[in-house]
C-alpha cells in the first residue's frame, strides 16, 4: 500500500488519530459525550459496546460522515475539521460502513472503483478494473465475479465487495464497523488475516465487533463505550471476553445461552418434503416439532435464506409443505402469516423495517388488523403496544418519536423481532437473529427464543454463528450448495462436525 509514513510494525507511541472531548448530539439527544481516545500506527484498536452505545456514530465522526457537535479531532497532533468522507479519505482515514453502501445497479468492479476509476483522462479501463476487483476480492478469500451486478449478490458478498472497495484506497487508518456481522467463519478468518496484514504494513485499524472472541484474538487495545461515554481503554491482553462483556453491559454476564430442555416426544407440526427453490435450493426435506428449536447452519451462499423464503411464499418454490399433517400451499407471505408462520428477514434495513417511518408504524405494520377498531386504527392502542414492546424487548431509544432508521442496528433488530411477534405466531423462522447484536442483547434474544419454544411455539434459527446454534438449538441441519447435507443432534453438536458438513471438506482434526 502507498502509506506515506511506514513506521515500524509495532505500535508507536505518537497517536495517529486523537479525539478530545468529542461529542455529538442529534437534536436534543447527546449520543456521544466527551470521548477522548487515540489510535496509534500499527495497532488494531477495537471499539466495543452495547447496541446504541454510539460506536458507529463515533466512527462516522472520524471518517467525516458526520460533524461533531463539540470537541476536536487531531490527526498527527494537528486539529482538523473534516469536511466530508472524501476529505477523510484524502487524509488516509477510510471507513467500512455497518450498512452496505454500494450502488446496486453497478457491477462489483464498478463499485469497487467508483469515484476513482482506472483509465486515461476520459475513458475507463474496465478490463483493468475487473482484474483489480477480482484480485481485491480474492485477497479477502472470496471469489466473486467482478462483472456481477451488486444488487443480486447476497449480503455477505456485498459486504466483502464493500471491504475490498475501501481497502483499495491508500489508507493510514482503516475503520471496520462490524465487518464480520454477515460473514461466516471462513470469510471471517480470511478477513482477520487481512487486518493483521494492514497492521503489519504500519496502518492503524479501528475494529468494531460484537464477537468478543474475535476482538480478543485480533485487537491490541480495546475501548469500551457505554451510553455514549467512554468507559475504559485497556490492553486486549488484559481482558477476557467475559470481562469485556461486563465492561460493556455494566453487570456480570454469567451465561450467554439459557438452559433449555428439549421436550421428549414432540409432535411434528411442520413437515417440508422435497422442497426446491429454483436456482437456490434443491429437494430439501425436514420436519419441525412443536416446541422445537431447529437450527440451520451453512456457509454464506448455502441457500438457507432462499429456502426459508421459498417456504413462506416469498419466492416461487416447489414441493410439499404439511402443517399439522395437512398439506398447505403458500402462494404469498400473506398466506403463511395467516397460517401462523412468520419469517424475520436477515436484511432488516432492506426488508424488515420502514426506515423512514416511526417506531409505532413499524411495530404494528404486520399485525395492523389487531389495531383496527371499526374502520380506524386505534392510535392509543398502538402507542400502548409500542410502550410494551420497548419494555419487553428492551429497545433502547432516547425518544419514542425517532424514525426506525435512527435506531442503532441492534435496536432495529429488536424492533423487527417485536414487530413480527405482534402476530403471535406458532412457528417463527429467524434469519440471522443476532447479526450485529451486542452480547447483552444476544443473551436477551436467546432467552426470548427459548421462551418461545417453552410456550409451545416452534422456532427455526438460521445462523452463520455456530456457537449460538449449538447453544440454543435442539437439532441443527446443515446446508451446502442448496441441499441439506446432514443433521447434528445432541452431543454430536460441535463446530467441527458442522464445518465438515458445511464445506464438504474434512478438516484435519475431524479426520
Amino acid at each position: 500500500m502507498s502509506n506515506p509514513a511506514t513506521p515500524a510494525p509495532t505500535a508507536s507511541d505518537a497517536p495517529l488519530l486523537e479525539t478530545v472531548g468529542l461529542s455529538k448530539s442529534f437534536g436534543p439527544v447527546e449520543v456521544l459525550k466527551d470521548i477522548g481516545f487515540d489510535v496509534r500506527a500499527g495497532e488494531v484498536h477495537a471499539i466495543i459496546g452495547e447496541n446504541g452505545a454510539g460506536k458507529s456514530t463515533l466512527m462516522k465522526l472520524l471518517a467525516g460522515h458526520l460533524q461533531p457537535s463539540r470537541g476536536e479531532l487531531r490527526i498527527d497532533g494537528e486539529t482538523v475539521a473534516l469536511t466530508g468522507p472524501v476529505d477523510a479519505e484524502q487524509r488516509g482515514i477510510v471507513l467500512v460502513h455497518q450498512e452496505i453502501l454500494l450502488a446496486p445497479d453497478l457491477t462489483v468492479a464498478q463499485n469497487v472503483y467508483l469515484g476513482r476509476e482506472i483509465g486515461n483522462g476520459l475513458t475507463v479501463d474496465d478490463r483493468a478494473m475487473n482484474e483489480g476487483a477480482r484480485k481485491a476480492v480474492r485477497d479477502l478469500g472470496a471469489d466473486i465475479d467482478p462483472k456481477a451486478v451488486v444488487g443480486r449478490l447476497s449480503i455477505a458478498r456485498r459486504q466483502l465487495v464493500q471491504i475490498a472497495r475501501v481497502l483499495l484506497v491508500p489508507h493510514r487508518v482503516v475503520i471496520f464497523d462490524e465487518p464480520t456481522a454477515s460473514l461466516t467463519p471462513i470469510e471471517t478468518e480470511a478477513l482477520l488475516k487481512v487486518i493483521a496484514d494492514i497492521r503489519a504494513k504500519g496502518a492503524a485499524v479501528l475494529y468494531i465487533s460484537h464477537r468478543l472472541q474475535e476482538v480478543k484474538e485480533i485487537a491490541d487495545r480495546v475501548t469500551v463505550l457505554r451510553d455514549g461515554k467512554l468507559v475504559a481503554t485497556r490492553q486486549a491482553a488484559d481482558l477476557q471476553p467475559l470481562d469485556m462483556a461486563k465492561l460493556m453491559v455494566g453487570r456480570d454476564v454469567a451465561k450467554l445461552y439459557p438452559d433449555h430442555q428439549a421436550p421428549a416426544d414432540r409432535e411434528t407440526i411442520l413437515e417440508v418434503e422435497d422442497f426446491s427453490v429454483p436456482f437456490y435450493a434443491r429437494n430439501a426435506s425436514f420436519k419441525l416439532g412443536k416446541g422445537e428449536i431447529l437450527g440451520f447452519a451453512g456457509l454464506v451462499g448455502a441457500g438457507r435464506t432462499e429456502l426459508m423464503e421459498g417456504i413462506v411464499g416469498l419466492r416461487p418454490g416447489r414441493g410439499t409443505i404439511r402443517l399439522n399433517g395437512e398439506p398447505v400451499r403458500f402462494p404469498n407471505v400473506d398466506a403463511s402469516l395467516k397460517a401462523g408462520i412468520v419469517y424475520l428477514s436477515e436484511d432488516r434495513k432492506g426488508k424488515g423495517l420502514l426506515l423512514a417511518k416511526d417506531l409505532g408504524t413499524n411495530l404494528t405494520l404486520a399485525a395492523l388488523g389487531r389495531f383496527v377498531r371499526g374502520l380506524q386504527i386505534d392510535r392509543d392502542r398502538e402507542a400502548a403496544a409500542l410502550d410494551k414492546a420497548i419494555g419487553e424487548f428492551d429497545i433502547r431509544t432516547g425518544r419514542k418519536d425517532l424514525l426506525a432508521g435512527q435506531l442503532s442496528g441492534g435496536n432495529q433488530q429488536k424492533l423487527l423481532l417485536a414487530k413480527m411477534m405482534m402476530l403471535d405466531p406458532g412457528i417463527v423462522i429467524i434469519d440471522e437473529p443476532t447479526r450485529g447484536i451486542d452480547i447483552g442483547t444476544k443473551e436477551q434474544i436467546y432467552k426470548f427464543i427459548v421462551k418461545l419454544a417453552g410456550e409451545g411455539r416452534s422456532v427455526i434459527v438460521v445462523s452463520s454463528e455456530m456457537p449460538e446454534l449449538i447453544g440454543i438449538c435442539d437439532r441443527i441441519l446443515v446446508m451446502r450448495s442448496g441441499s441439506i447435507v446432514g443433521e447434528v443432534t445432541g452431543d454430536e453438536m460441535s463446530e467441527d462436525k458442522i464445518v465438515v458438513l458445511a464445506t464438504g471438506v474434512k478438516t484435519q482434526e475431524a479426520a
Partner: protein
Amino acid sequence: MTDLAADKPRARRSWRNIDLTAVAPFVALALLLVLGAFANSNFLSIDNLLNVITRSAFIAIIAVGATFVISSGGLDLSVGSMVAFVASLTIMFMNSGVIASPAMMLAAGVALALLIGAACGLANGLITTMGRIEPFIATLGTMGIFRGLTTWLSQGGAITLRSSEIQTLYRPAYFGTVLGVPVPIIVIFVIAAIGAFVLYRTRYGRHVLAVGSNEDVARYSGIPVDRVRTITYVIQGLCVAVACLLYIPRLGSTSATTGLMWELQAITAVVVGGTALRGGVGWIWGTICGAFILEIVGNIMLLSNFVSEYLLGAIQGAIIIIAMLVQRSLARR
C-alpha cells in the same frame, strides 16, 4: 397514559420536520392571494374566490386520487383521458333513454359513471401490477386507449347531453349552492375528508404508505402489495368519476379534447401540495391546496391585464417553480 410524555417531543419534532412541508403550500397560497389582491381589486371578492375554488373542483378531486396512487409509489397519466371517456359514456347512456324517468336515469347514470371509473382504474392497476410495467408507461398506454375510444365514440364530434329534463335536474350538482356554498366546493371537501380518513386512519391507508415507502418491507410484512397498489388506481378511477359527475352538468358535453393535460395538472397539484413523487408520504390537504394554487394562478393571470396572453403559459410555469422553491426553502428547516 404513558404517552403523555412522549407526545410532546413528537409534536415538536413533527413541527420541525413534517409540518413545515405540510404548511408550505398554504404559505404559497397565502402569498398568491396577496399577489392577486394587487393584480385586480375584484380578485378578493367573494364571488371571484368562490368561482375559482369551484372550478378547481375537477383537478382537486382527481388529485385526491392521485395522492393515493403517488404515495403508494405509482403514477397515473391516464386521468385526463379517463375523464373524457367516463363522461362520454355516461352522457351517451343518459341520452340512450333506456330509463324513462329522468330522475331514475340520472341516478343510474351516476352509478354507471362510478362503475366505469372504477373499472378504468382497475385496468390501470392490473396492467401495472400484474403486467409489471412501469406505471408511467402503462398509464401512458391507457391514456392513448381512453382518448382513442372517446374519439371513436364521438366519431370526432361532440357528445352532448340532450334531455333537457335531465339537464335541469342535474344542473344544481354544479351550479347549486348549499347555504351559499357552491356544491362543488362541498364535494371537494367531502372527498378530501374521506381521502384523508382513508389514508391516515385506516389500515388500508397505512398499507398504501408502507408500500410506497419500501415495497420489500411491505411484502415481507404480509401486505398484499399488488392488491394495495391496484386499489389505489381504483380509488383514482372513482375520483375521476366523481369529477366527471361535476363536469357533465357544468359543460354538458364532451369531445376528444376533454380533460386534455389534466393528468399533468393533477400531478402538479399533488407535488405542489408537498407529496413526493417517489412515494411513501401523502398530504391530502396539501393536494387540495395545490389544486387551488394552480387555479388561482390562472385566475390572477386572467384578471390582471399586464401579461401578454402569449406569455401566460410561461408565467404559469415560472410560478409553479417559484411555489416549489418557496416550499423547499420552508421545508428545509
